[in-house]
């Protein structure tokens, strides 16, 4: 239970860090156990443990270089040279049927900078769609995905226009629509609103909250206010480790670890 995380003396991260799996009220869809990643001799992730409930938003916060984006890349299979265990829907992702490509259809990832393909808006949304059944109802799927990404009203009259003509905020929402069109069971978002204007940020947050009713979202963010707006659970990472994880309100109001407190107050973390 979340209440188990009690450190009255605010221990340093190296000592008794509360990284044990915190059970949620909801059953977990994704469980990460002792995930470690080393790239070019640098320890990027160190024995990361956490679990993702079957619905709602889980925000990952932490300073730059904490390993947040690398964590998402490991979960999506873009990084494969890690150790530990990642279980999605009861299956170890290393033994995933169909390999990493199939896993990526199950665990979608939206990058920090929107990347649209050199094609129309419609073609971009349909890019990951496989199989004749889904292709036959592509128009329906395009509309549904664009509505979920809060973009439909802005592009419904120009679906065949090049996707590159959209603004940055619209392109990011198009990327969200493209990712949800393949119906992933988990969606990972890597700072989806970084460097976007407030209006686009608001629209994307609304879209995320809407989506979170159907699928669990794991969202990396530098914006602490955004993490609070998204509610759900919050995981605080520093120096490649999970320092603390709890419900959003509890973590922001009553952080258990001194590192979390320092980060929330000064936006710095002294884990080294």
């Amino acid at each position, binding site marked *: 239970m979340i209440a188990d995380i009690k450190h009255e003396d605010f221990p340093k991260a190296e000592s008794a860090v509360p990284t044990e799996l915190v059970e949620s009220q909801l059953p977990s869809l994704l469980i990460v156990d002792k995930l470690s990643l080393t790239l070019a001799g640098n320890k990027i992730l160190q024995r990361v443990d956490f679990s993702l409930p079957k619905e709602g938003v889980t925000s990952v916060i932490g300073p730059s270089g904490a390993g947040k984006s690398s964590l998402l890349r490991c979960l999506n299979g873009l990084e494969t040279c890690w150790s530990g265990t990642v279980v999605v829907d009861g299956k170890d992702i290393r033994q995933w049927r169909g390999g990493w490509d199939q896993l*990526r259809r199950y665990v979608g990832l939206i990058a920090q900078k929107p990347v649209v393909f050199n094609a129309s808006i419609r073609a971009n949304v349909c890019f990951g769609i496989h199989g004749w059944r889904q292709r036959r109802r592509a128009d329906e799927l395009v509309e549904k995905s664009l509505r979920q990404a809060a973009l439909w009203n802005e592009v419904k009259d120009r679906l065949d226009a090049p996707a590159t003509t959209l603004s940055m905020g619209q392109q990011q929402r198009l990327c969200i629509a493209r990712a949800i069109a393949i119906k992933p069971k988990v969606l990972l978002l890597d700072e989806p609103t970084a460097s976007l204007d407030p209006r686009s940020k608001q629209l994307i947050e609304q879209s995320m909250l809407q989506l979170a009713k159907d699928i669990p979202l794991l969202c990396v963010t530098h914006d602490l206010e955004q993490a609070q707006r998204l509610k759900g659970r919050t995981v605080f990472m520093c120096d490649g480790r999970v320092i603390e994880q709890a419900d959003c309100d509890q973590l922001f109001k009553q952080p258990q670890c001194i590192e979390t407190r320092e980060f929330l107050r000064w936006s710095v973390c002294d884990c080294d």
Partner: protein
Amino acid sequence: MSLLPIQHRDALSKGMVLLFALPALLIPTTVLCYIFWQAMPVLSLSFVFGSADGIGFGVTEGVFPQLVGSLLLAVMACLIAIPFALATALYHRTYATPRQQRWLNTLFTMLQGIPPIVFGLCGLVVLVNLFAWGVSLLSGAVVLAVVVLPLLVLNTLATLERIPLAYSEAGSALGLGKGAIIWRLWLPRCWLQLLTGLLLAMARALSETAPLMFTATVFSGVVWPDSIFSPVTTLQTHIFYLAQEGNDPLVISIAWGSAAVLVLLVASFGLLARLLQKLGAH
């Protein structure tokens, strides 16, 4: 410490650069002007598009058969080389280990430096004699394909390397396999740049003479090839032949005329490549 004030040092530096840069610009320009000056008396539409009966070797008629022969060889060579170059570059970019990539880079950089006459000699032994294809369009095109292959591979690699990693990763994140990323993301994105590389390779093929002399061309008796197993005449070897008849002023001016046509042909490929490059950048 320098004795000159800073503005004089700058002027001196600029002067030194210009001293070597200007000749590098002026000499080729002068050569080009000289070619067209010498070619002026014979250059006309009837010279470029005039047909021949194969008897006068282009001395009394136009150079159209030679022009077509050169183009046929260059186009065929590039058509043969494209799949190999594309496959090699795609293998290098997607499947090769870093060690294999280093090997491939070294190999193709080295191959690019091998004199084409060596490939011509190999073509003579293997294609002309061993395979009994004879001195023919096909033998010449295959040899030219080998000559332009390293250039095509390196151009294709440079094009593929310009595709941002985030673009490919966005495809991977959607569950696209390597094949789908190649066909659905990379090629639609960079086909214009690939075409630019192809045109540059064709320009290079048009400039080659030595390997064709062993494998593809004859100096007389042929106007149009009957099949891919027939020999052809080309502008390059035509100039070579005419230049040897240096005593006759008419023959020499026709050699200059042929050279001007060849230069225009190569330049037009270069200009087209540049145009495509600009289009690709937009």
